[in-house]
């Protein structure tokens, strides 16, 4: 304590003697209010460094409290409690400042401001909206609660409760003292539990300003002193120090609480406060000082005695000299003995407590600390207050009023910073360790759950990535139009006849070759749609398409997936049919059924569909060749089908007889032997030769060229029957070998027998000059449907054949004018026939017949394809 205090006298006001209660009230902006126990209250402005206003009350002032928010002060006088609206007064004051700048304005507080008509109020306290007054009535102390109005305009202060405490007559030494003068000091402060502050920030902000009589006590100490109930109800506790030395407390908001005695100092209490403020803003020590210097420090004794639980420790001690007045800052208690201003460092005691073991020593330490307050060498201070702004730079400023009536600012040398290291008792440590362990367990559990989630998400992302890559690949295919062989994911088909349960059925085998670098995994599905090319057969417009889907499990690059699908049993299929296959990627199968079902009901149908290829399976694919071996087979299995045929024939003939020639189907079936339908296609043999050659050369090296027309026909037939067009291939390889002549007998998918003849003819009978070697493909069958279907198929084949050979065939520019002319002629005749058929009013039967004959004509005399 080397540094000396700087004392600066701010103002002088005339009064003498110390027999009155002097109080300094700070916190009204730059104004400080001083009541000196007379009728006057001085308003000192720190900014102007002078007393600006003097409030003149009707009687001697005994206490003064303020409400910063509303700028109100309550003044306790002999005759009652007055309320003064400070803001209003000071504003008026400022306006009249100009003329009366030299002398302070004097304001008389009239009787109108009287709000509580109670006599001899010795102390006041404001807690929120509650005004408390403490006064002595006959034989008891009376603590009365008044409700302050919310509107400052209204003056009604409703009394809503009061508490009695009987006066103790035997006040040992204080009795003599109190006879000497009217001074009957009582102290009224309000203690808040520390954790309340956190919940209501308005309190916290108010704390710094109202702090003179409001303190925030550490929750544990609060609970120990005032009970769990008060802490739980977050009730402020009123603490009053009486002249008989008792320290009483009252939980304000607890129903049924009473004014109870906390401690007795056995000498008039002149100061109560809380100090040793931690970082959280909670005071750890409650201090009460008596007039003769007895001080009690109330702290938490965490180590406790026998039970191990925390206890409140009351440490009593005596400080030298009478205590005239006191004030507190964050760690120190300052008091004036009249002769000197002393500082008691309370944190020192508590610091020593932390480091030392518990027991006698600690109380000894604290007592020792009480014994040796440090002198600050300021004398005759009769009132002290700590202005709110003082703690900015670590040095402490106090406001004091000296016995001679001077308002002084006392600057103290900077105190040291204390740090409180918190130490928990072992029980708490073990509990917290247990808590931590269980928390770790929880975290671990959670982490593993999260890990699996992340894993599955990664998996999901990988699959999605694949899916996207695959779909890009397939989309690229469609744009670049690669030949089918070079597509990374391609599929081709084979048709094959099989007998099952004595019934022939045609099945289509699909081969999907995955030559892409990606694995087709779970989530991918091959979908094949089979639908007839013409929908005419289905009556009600319903599509007779069939869907097949084959989910992939793990189709690695280079692997081939094989699936066989039944297309039709013999006799009930409508050829040609379109087979379109696509790859489908569905999100739902990726996510897993249960998740999808649970969360995204709408997602179930969402999938990506990538078209792979669309092909046509035509009559040629579905032919059953009557090879020698096949004939054998047929012979063995003939009876049933033959019988069926004959029955059908019979039935059809009956039908015919009844209804006449009605339709194509009936007609074809009705004349199996007598009337054969035929259709033919003519192709220039040169083109055929050209187009077949490269294929042959690549496939069969032995035959360099096909000179022999016989050979040519045979190879064309072979080609027609077995050619792998658009990826569809006839599966009956064994039968193909048996082809020796250029005539093939076969049975169509509807069971009709048919003949396919390939031979070389010469077209252009009349003028042999321009003879063109021509190959005729003739289709004969008793079934009109078979003829039509096969004709269509053969045309398609030849078309594709020619398409693949357009470049080579471009050189042959022989235009068959002759043929054209004749064809034109025929076309004209047919046109007239058709129009005639439609034009004349004939029966539908006749018209159909006419149209059929035109059709046959068309089929029989084709144009030569060059």
């Amino acid at each position, binding site marked *: 304590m080397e540094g000396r205090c700087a004392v600066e006298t701010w103002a002088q006001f005339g009064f003498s003697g110390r027999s009155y209660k002097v109080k300094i009230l700070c916190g009204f902006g730059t104004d400080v209010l001083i009541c000196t126990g007379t009728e006057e209250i001085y308003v000192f402005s720190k900014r102007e460094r002078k007393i600006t206003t003097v409030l003149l009350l009707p009687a001697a002032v005994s206490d003064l409290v303020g409400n910063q928010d509303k700028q109100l002060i309550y003044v306790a006088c002999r005759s009652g409690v007055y309320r003064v609206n400070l803001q209003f007064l000071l504003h008026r004051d400022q306006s009249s400042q100009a003329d009366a700048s030299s002398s302070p304005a004097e304001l008389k507080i009239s009787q109108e401001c009287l709000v509580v*008509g109670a006599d001899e109020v010795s102390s006041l306290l404001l807690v929120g909206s509650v005004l408390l007054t403490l006064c002595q009535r006959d034989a008891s102390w009376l603590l009365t609660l008044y409700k302050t109005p919310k509107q400052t305009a209204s003056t009604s202060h409703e009394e809503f409760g009061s508490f009695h405490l009987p006066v103790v007559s035997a006040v040992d030494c204080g009795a003599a003292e109190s006879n000497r003068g009217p001074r009957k000091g009582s102290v009224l402060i309000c203690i808040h539990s520390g954790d309340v502050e956190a919940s209501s920030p308005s309190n916290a902000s108010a704390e710094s300003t109202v702090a003179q009589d409001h303190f925030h006590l550490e929750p544990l100490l609060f*609970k*120990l002193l005032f009970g769990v109930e008060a802490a*739980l109800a977050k009730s402020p506790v009123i603490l009053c120090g009486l002249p008989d030395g008792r320290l009483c407390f009252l939980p304000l*908001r607890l129903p*049924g609480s009473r004014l109870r005695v906390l401690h007795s100092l056995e000498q008039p209490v002149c100061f109560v406060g809380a100090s040793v403020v931690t970082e959280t803003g909670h005071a750890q020590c409650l201090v009460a000082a008596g007039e003769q210097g007895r001080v009690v420090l109330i702290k938490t004794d965490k180590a406790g005695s026998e039970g191990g639980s925390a206890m409140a420790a009351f440490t009593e001690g005596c400080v030298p000299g009478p205590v005239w007045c006191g004030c507190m800052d964050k760690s120190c208690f300052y008091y004036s003995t009249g002769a000197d201003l002393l500082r008691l460092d309370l944190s020192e005691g508590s610091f020593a407590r932390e480091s030392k073991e518990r027991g006698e020593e600690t109380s000894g330490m604290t007592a020792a600390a009480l014994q040796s307050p440090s002198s600050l060498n300021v004398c005759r201070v009769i009132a002290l207050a700590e202005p709110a702004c003082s703690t900015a730079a670590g040095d402490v400023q106090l406001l004091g009023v000296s016995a001679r009536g001077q308002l002084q600012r006392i600057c103290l040398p900077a105190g040291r910073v204390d740090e409180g290291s918190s130490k928990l008792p072992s029980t708490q440590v073990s509990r917290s360790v247990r808590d931590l362990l269980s928390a770790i367990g929880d975290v671990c559990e959670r982490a593993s759950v999260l890990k699996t989630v992340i894993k599955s998400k990664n998996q999901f992302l990988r699959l999605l990535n694949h899916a996207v890559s695959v779909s890009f690949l397939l989309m690229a295919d469609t744009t670049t139009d690669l030949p089918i062989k070079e597509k990374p994911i391609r599929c081709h088909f084979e048709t094959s006849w099989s007998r099952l349960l004595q019934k022939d059925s045609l099945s289509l085998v699909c081969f999907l070759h995955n030559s892409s670098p990606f694995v087709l995994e779970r989530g991918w599905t091959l979908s094949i749609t089979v639908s007839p090319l013409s929908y005419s057969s289905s009556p009600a417009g319903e599509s007779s398409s069939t869907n097949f889907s084959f989910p992939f499990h793990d189709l690695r690059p280079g692997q081939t997936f094989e699936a066989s699908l039944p297309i039709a049993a013999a006799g009930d299929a409508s050829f040609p049919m379109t087979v379109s296959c696509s790859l489908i990627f569905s999100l739902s199968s990726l996510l897993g059924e249960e998740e999808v079902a649970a969360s995204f009901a709408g997602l179930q149908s969402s999938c990506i569909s990538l078209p792979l290829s669309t092909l046509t399976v035509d009559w040629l694919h579905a032919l059953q060749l009557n090879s020698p071996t096949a004939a054998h087979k047929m012979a063995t299995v003939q009876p049933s089908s033959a019988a069926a045929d004959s029955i059908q024939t019979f039935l059809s003939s009956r039908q015919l007889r009844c209804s006449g020639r009605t339709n194509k189907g009936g007609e074809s079936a009705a004349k199996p032997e007598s009337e054969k339908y035929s259709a033919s296609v003519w192709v220039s043999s040169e083109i055929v030769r050209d187009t077949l050659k490269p294929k042959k050369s690549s496939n069969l090296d032995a035959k360099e060229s096909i000179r022999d027309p016989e050979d040519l026909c045979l190879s064309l037939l072979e080609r027609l029957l077995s050619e792998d067009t658009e990826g569809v291939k006839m599966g009956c390889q064994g039968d193909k070998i048996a082809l020796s002549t250029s005539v093939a007998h076969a049975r169509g998918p509807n069971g009709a027998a048919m003949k396919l003849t390939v031979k070389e003819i010469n077209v252009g009978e009349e003028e042999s000059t321009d003879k063109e070697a021509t190959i005729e493909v003739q289709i004969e069958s008793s079934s009109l449907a078979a003829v039509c279907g096969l004709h269509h198929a053969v045309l398609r084949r030849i078309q594709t054949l020619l398409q693949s050979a357009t470049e080579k065939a471009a050189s042959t520019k022989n235009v068959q004018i002759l043929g054209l002319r004749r064809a034109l002629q025929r076309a004209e005749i047919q046109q007239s026939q058709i129009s005639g058929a439609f034009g004349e009013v004939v029966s539908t039967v006749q018209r159909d017949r006419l149209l059929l004959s035109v059709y046959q004509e068309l089929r029989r005399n084709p144009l030569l394809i060059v």
Partner: protein
Amino acid sequence: MYQPPSLLEKWSQENNELVNKCKQQEAGGGAVSRDHRQSSLRWCSSEFHKLLRKIQGIPPHVDHSQLELAVVYNTCVCFTAQSQFSEAELLLKEATERVLQVTGNNADTSDPLVLWRAGLKSAGNTALHPHVLYLLCLQWALWLAKCQLENIGELQEQMSSLCEIVCDGVGDCSPSEAKGRLSKSPLLVMEPKRLTELLQICTSIAQGAEKLNEGRSSEALSDLQAASALPATRALVAYTHLLSGSCLAHMNRPQMALQCYKRALETDSRCVCALYRSMLIYRQLGNTQAEIQALRLLHSTLMLPPATEPVLGGIQPLSPSLLLSSQSLSRLLSVPSALSVLYSLALKCVLSGRVTEGVEHYLDLLAALHSEDQHAVDAEVSVLPRMLELYLEAGTALLFTRRPADCMAFCNEVISTTLELVPEKVVLEEPEEGIGGDARGLSVEGEDKVAMLLWAAAAYLLQGHCHTHLKDWKQAVTHYTRCINLLVKVHLKNRDFQPQIPAADVNVKHGKDLCTLQRMKGLSLAWRGISFTQMDQLREALRDLQLSLQAFPDYTGAGLWCGEVLWRLGRKHEAAACWEKTWSLTTQTSVEKLPLYLQDPQSGPLLDSVELRLRIQELGLT
């Protein structure tokens, strides 16, 4: 020719002026605060007293006596209104003595009864007689205010004749006569007729309460029923009905009592006491729905803002509340505070299965306790349980309504408040007969450490239940374990018994704390066992359930689950035996007596007894 007014005239003029002033102030009294009224009364009484001293300065004389007695009357009314009974009584005594002097009689006695008899007799048929009677009225009021009903009984006949004279006397006079008398006679602060009426009914009420207190219910009943016909304010008539109801309730006629209470309420809707009494009767009758309804009404009535100073006696200096101050009456008229009514309502709702409603009431109650407006007003001993118990009960109610998160918040609050104060070790002694339970275990600060520990444990137990409800078995085990760890800190100390005898009769002999402790032990262990069962840790589960049965053998839940665990462990015959034993247990300890938070949680896994019986049957077959 000016004739200076005689002293008599001057005094009577002064008296009349004062009376008028008094009446004026009282007429405007509604607006002025109570303090103001008090001070004006004080002023009046001092002025009257001054005047009286002037009058009494001269020896008693017949001419003055009428005025003197009137002033005495006025002064005494003012004194009585300020509860200065002894001063008033002294004045009355002096006045009587002076009356005796005037009439020439001399009484040496100081006994007020003898004095009054003599006074009345001497006044006889003189003009003074009414005034003496007025003074007797005041004496009556004083006795009534001081609850000296026996004196009133002694002068019963004089009183009844007084009533007749005062009430009829004024009525007899023809208007002109009355006017003439009024002009001559000095004014009075309070009309004697009014005073008499007030006194009559108040006396009936006070006597009725006294008799009821002494157990003479039927006697009191007839008096009160007679009194209910007297002319009086609604509030006082309501009191007579109310007291009649109480008499009937005493005579074990609850339905008739209810009728009386109903009439009291009909007479004066602010008679909350009648509502309260009705509620008590419903409770006694076991009519829970009606009780809840009554509680709700009571609460809402109590929450009403107080009426603008219920004017019981009209604008009169003497109020009925002054005259009805006997203890037995105030005991009969006392009504618990709004908060405790709310608490009863909440608890009743939860216990009778209206849990959601109960929760609302609990939350209202807690909100009220936390509100800024709540202040420690009622010094009367509160019926409310401790705050922490309220928290726990509210938490339990929340759990019942499947709001475990809220319940846990409450429990956390309880734990954070208590845990720091829970001692490492605490000894639970058998309470001594003489001192009772209050002296034990109380620390300096007045907090019971055992209770603190039990509260914290109960909070953990509830949290365990919450986790059980959420099917978070691991956390449930943690919290049950914490509860158990706290509970084992209590050491039982017993003078007569060996400690820790798990006998059924321990519950009866030991205090409430021990019962709570054992039940909580049983519950926490059992539920930890059940949680272990859910986590398939059957060995731990079996251990816990068996320990639970040791601590608290009556808990059927533990017994059933113990059997279940045994069954799962393959010890089927033991399981069957265990179940049979559990079913054979007599009825559970009455649930109503237990704190709410110690009841079996209504959530969590359940065992179906029927299914268990089936299993036993199958076991028997195989």
